[in-house]
């Protein structure tokens, strides 16, 4: 008899019981079960080395069992002899492995540092948040688990998660919070942060009463939970943040790392046991896909929810690959040793290239169809079987990679295609489903967020193939993907030209084409079929633009830039890439104005008819700016601190803002975004998170004016109104600048968690309250 049907919420190793698992049943009640869960890591080396290791470890029979066995080494493309070290309690495995690696550093290791949820998923098929049937014995040991809905199901049964939200009333790095806002079961409570004892008692009561499965916090990792725990200890009022009794929370250190040429900062993390904690401010891509997408990531990567919320999509992809390897009996290397094959330097010219880019024709183009390959690089990896072990140096193979002289071994499916295929298929299915789901459908948002989570995983999988620390990365496989990508795009271009289309632009995985008589989606279908026929890859119509504008580079207007464009589709929706409104470091004042201008252009049959209105709008925005009617948060610039402060020879505005924060005792790390306002005089910036309130009269109005007119010029230039003309036209009627104007409502309201100053008078009122 099944004990219950429910969802696997959390699992972790335990010093006494091996593996602890928390489930939620269909009524929302939680169940704690345990299970012995021995884990195995492998050592690879010469017979003599393995014998020495055997001798060393064989005197610990209570903790370890040893075996000589064979496992598949994906890089060597064959089974290799390994020493399997099985640690009876998974809690001890990490310690024993690190001792072993320190004592025998010359050995290679595999399956050594894997997340326990991956091991559990590989062994039982059950992954975090999966719906399952669970059997257990009378002492609470898990005896059997049966997965009812796999990770690739499009519509999974919703989990009855009980969520409690905890957030301070204000960003703690900006000002001192006054109360803690608790939201649970549709109720909202404000707990005073100045009186800790009652706060702790009330919070404990709320946690006990509602027993949440998930704590959703703001700044929970970096401020709130550490604060709560410190006060809890001080007042001897345990909060019961964990469900698992007797366990402290798990701390993960903050870190700064490079990703795609950018420096990224991740704050410290606090994970709970038996209950999940997600800090929305520290979660990866939370603004993009929220909880629905995070649950999706957790399910498909088999990483616990708390981990899935905080790891990059690259780690997610790596987990999917490792899980596939574990299931296939392939060794997961601890440290990848394989380097690039020796190749002639001349080959670098052909091999070491990226995606194909065809410079667009600058200016306005009407009736342009944008067609994109669906997840091009993952599709290439799956359909052309690209994986580290399938790439062969032998140029005599039949399946030569275009222009690389490498061959693909198609005798069996590669590890990477095996790992990616279900992910890609789910993404394509989800895209189709989304296209047929009306806007009013309550599940549309859920689908959109989940589709976004899958998109990010797929976007990253290609880069991970070439990433130095990827367990299954290989540079030749990475190069093969781009080689196929270039070939596919060239074939698509040829197909379009053969069918009478003019190619306006090619950009890595998409092309923009124009045909004077083919302006409806159904007119494009034959082209899609032809491209699919010639490339073997799925392709879809993104839409047909009423008009699209490709803008020149900032340095040289005559020089086309492939990823800077904006346009309006036939359904009126706007697509924008590479201009201010899409940039993270643009101020809301500028980016919202630019978007408003685009909306104005989109609202007219002839975009040039919008010019007088656009000029009026810009004048109004400048009047608002000069008269202090633009809220200070709308003037905030958020730039990333690119390096340590001392490494700056000439400090950037962000670095100067950080210097101000440092003087106020606030530390910032490279990779963190620094909000600041441009101000008059030196140092020219005011760090938003300084304890003092900014002086609204010190705002560098001229600078914001320049930024606004520059952004407007980019959008209006194609209709004869470049920045210079615009400046002349907008500023010509100076008398209008003195007209009294009421505060203007923005067309798209900026949402910010940072409470802002809306008006100088209000700013003065707030001054006394901001610390």
């Amino acid at each position: 008899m099944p004990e219950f049907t429910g969802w696997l919420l959390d699992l972790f190793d335990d010093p006494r019981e091996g593996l602890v698992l928390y489930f939620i049943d269909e009524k929302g009640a939680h169940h704690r079960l345990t299970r012995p869960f021995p884990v195995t890591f492998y050592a690879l080396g010469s017979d003599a080395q393995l014998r020495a290791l055997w001798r060393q470890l064989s005197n610990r029979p209570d903790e370890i069992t040893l075996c000589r066995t064979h496992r598949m080494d994906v890089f060597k493309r064959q089974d290799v002899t390994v020493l399997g070290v099985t640690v009876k309690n998974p809690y001890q495995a990490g310690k024993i492995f690190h001792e072993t690696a320190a004592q025998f550093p010359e050995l290679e290791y595999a399956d050594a540092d894997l997340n326990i949820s991956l091991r559990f998923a590989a062994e039982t098929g059950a992954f975090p948040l999966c719906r399952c049937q669970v059997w257990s014995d009378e002492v609470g040991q898990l005896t059997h688990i049966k997965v009812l809905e796999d990770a690739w199901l499009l519509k999974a049964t919703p989990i009855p998660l009980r969520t409690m939200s905890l957030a301070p009333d204000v960003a703690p790095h900006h000002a001192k919070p006054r109360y803690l806002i608790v939201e649970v079961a549709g109720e909202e409570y404000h707990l005073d942060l100045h009186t800790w004892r009652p706060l702790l008692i009330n919070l404990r009561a709320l946690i006990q009463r509602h027993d949440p499965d998930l704590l959703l916090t703001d700044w929970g990792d970096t401020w709130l939970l550490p604060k709560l725990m410190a006060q809890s200890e001080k007042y001897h009022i345990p909060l019961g943040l964990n469900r698992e009794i007797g366990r402290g929370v798990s701390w993960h250190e903050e870190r700064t790392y490079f990703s795609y040429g950018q420096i990224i900062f991740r704050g410290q993390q606090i994970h709970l046991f038996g209950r999940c904690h997600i800090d929305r401010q520290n979660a990866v891509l939370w603004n993009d896909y929220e909880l629905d997408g995070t649950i999706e990531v957790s399910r498909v990567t088999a990483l616990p929810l708390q981990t899935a919320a905080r790891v990059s999509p690259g780690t997610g992809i790596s987990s999917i690959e490792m899980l596939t390897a574990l299931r296939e009996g392939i060794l997961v290397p601890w440290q990848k040793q394989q380097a690039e094959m020796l190749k002639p330097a001349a080959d670098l010219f052909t091999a070491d290239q990226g995606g194909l880019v065809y410079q667009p024709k600058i200016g306005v183009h009407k009736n342009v169809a944008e067609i994109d390959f669906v997840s091009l690089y993952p599709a290439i990896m799956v359909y052309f079987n690209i994986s580290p072990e399938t790439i062969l140096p032998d140029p005599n193979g039949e399946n030569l990679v275009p222009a690389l002289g490498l061959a693909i071994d198609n005798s069996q499916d590669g590890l990477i295609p095996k790992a990616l295929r279900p992910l890609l298929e789910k993404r394509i299915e989800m895209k189709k489903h989304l296209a047929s789901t009306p806007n009013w459908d309550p599940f549309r948002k859920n689908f959109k967020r989940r589709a976004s989570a899958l998109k990010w995983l797929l976007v990253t999988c290609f880069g991970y193939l070439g990433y130095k620390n990827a367990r299954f990365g290989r540079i030749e496989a990475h190069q093969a993907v781009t080689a196929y990508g270039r070939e596919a795009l060239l074939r698509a271009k040829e197909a379009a030209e053969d069918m009478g289309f003019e190619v306006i632009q090619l950009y890595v995985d998409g092309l923009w084409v124009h045909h004077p008589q083919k302006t409806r989606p159904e007119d494009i279908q034959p082209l899609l079929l032809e491209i699919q026929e010639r490339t073997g890859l799925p392709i879809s119509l993104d839409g047909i633009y009423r008009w699209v504008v490709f803008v020149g580079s900032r340095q040289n207007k005559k020089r086309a830039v492939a990823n800077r464009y904006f346009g309006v589709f036939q359904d009126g929706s706007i697509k924008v890439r590479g201009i201010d409104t899409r940039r993270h470091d643009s101020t809301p004042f500028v980016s919202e104005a630019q978007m408003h201008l685009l909306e104005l252009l989109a609202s007219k049959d002839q975009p040039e008819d919008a010019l007088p209105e656009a000029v009026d709008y810009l004048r109004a925005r400048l009047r608002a700016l000069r008269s202090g009617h633009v809220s200070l948060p709308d003037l905030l610039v958020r730039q990333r601190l690119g390096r340590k402060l001392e490494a700056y020879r000439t400090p950037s505005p962000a670095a100067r803002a950080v210097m101000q924060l440092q003087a106020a005792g606030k530390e910032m790390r490279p990779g963190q975004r620094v909000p600041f306002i441009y101000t008059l005089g030196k140092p020219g910036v005011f760090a938003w998170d300084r304890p003092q309130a900014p002086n609204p009269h010190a705002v560098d109005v001229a600078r914001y004016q320049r930024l606004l007119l520059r952004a407007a010029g980019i959008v209006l230039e194609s209709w004869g109104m470049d920045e210079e003309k615009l400046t002349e036209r907008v500023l010509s009627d100076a008398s209008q600048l003195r007209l009294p104007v009421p505060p203007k409502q923005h067309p798209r309201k900026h949402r910010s968690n940072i409470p802002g100053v809306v008006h100088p008078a209000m700013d003065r009122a707030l001054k006394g309250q901001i610390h």
Partner: protein
Amino acid sequence: MNKQIISFPVPKTGKISLVVAPKTVIHSLMSMLAVLALRGRVIVVDGGNCFDAYSLARALRRRTHQIQPALKAVQLSRAFTCYQMVAMLSELPVDGTPVIVLDLLSTFLDENVNFSKRQRLLESSLNLLRQISEGAPVAAWARAHPAAEGEYQQLLMPLLETAHDIWELQAPEIPDHQLPLF
């Protein structure tokens, strides 16, 4: 572009030649590589993803009209981690082919790997280079860091001790003040 090219003597069998210099030295190293490539096969192990094929092609073009055979004679492999660097050096053919290692220390400065482990791996790499140098010319370049201290200095020391010939070049000093425009 005006680049100052330094003519390094080509390395000799039995010795490890070391250049400690800023990144700009790459053009001079490509020039030395061009000389070697015209004599026969050369192996380049690139630890910093800094091999400059265009610079090599330009250096070859100054010496020959037939640059393709020389480009084919240069066999390149890139290491992106210190583990890969050791693995790569251990797999190099010991057949007298000259070996040039570019940006040797770069992968050993990876903070994701424990420092003592990196030191041990560097030691292994240097042992391998010593073995290779017994039968083939070996040259290595270590990128000079402006603030040579801490881990970098500790990693550079054993490399300096291993090398037989050392060229240490400094980047020209950049004035603190803005130069006059006229």
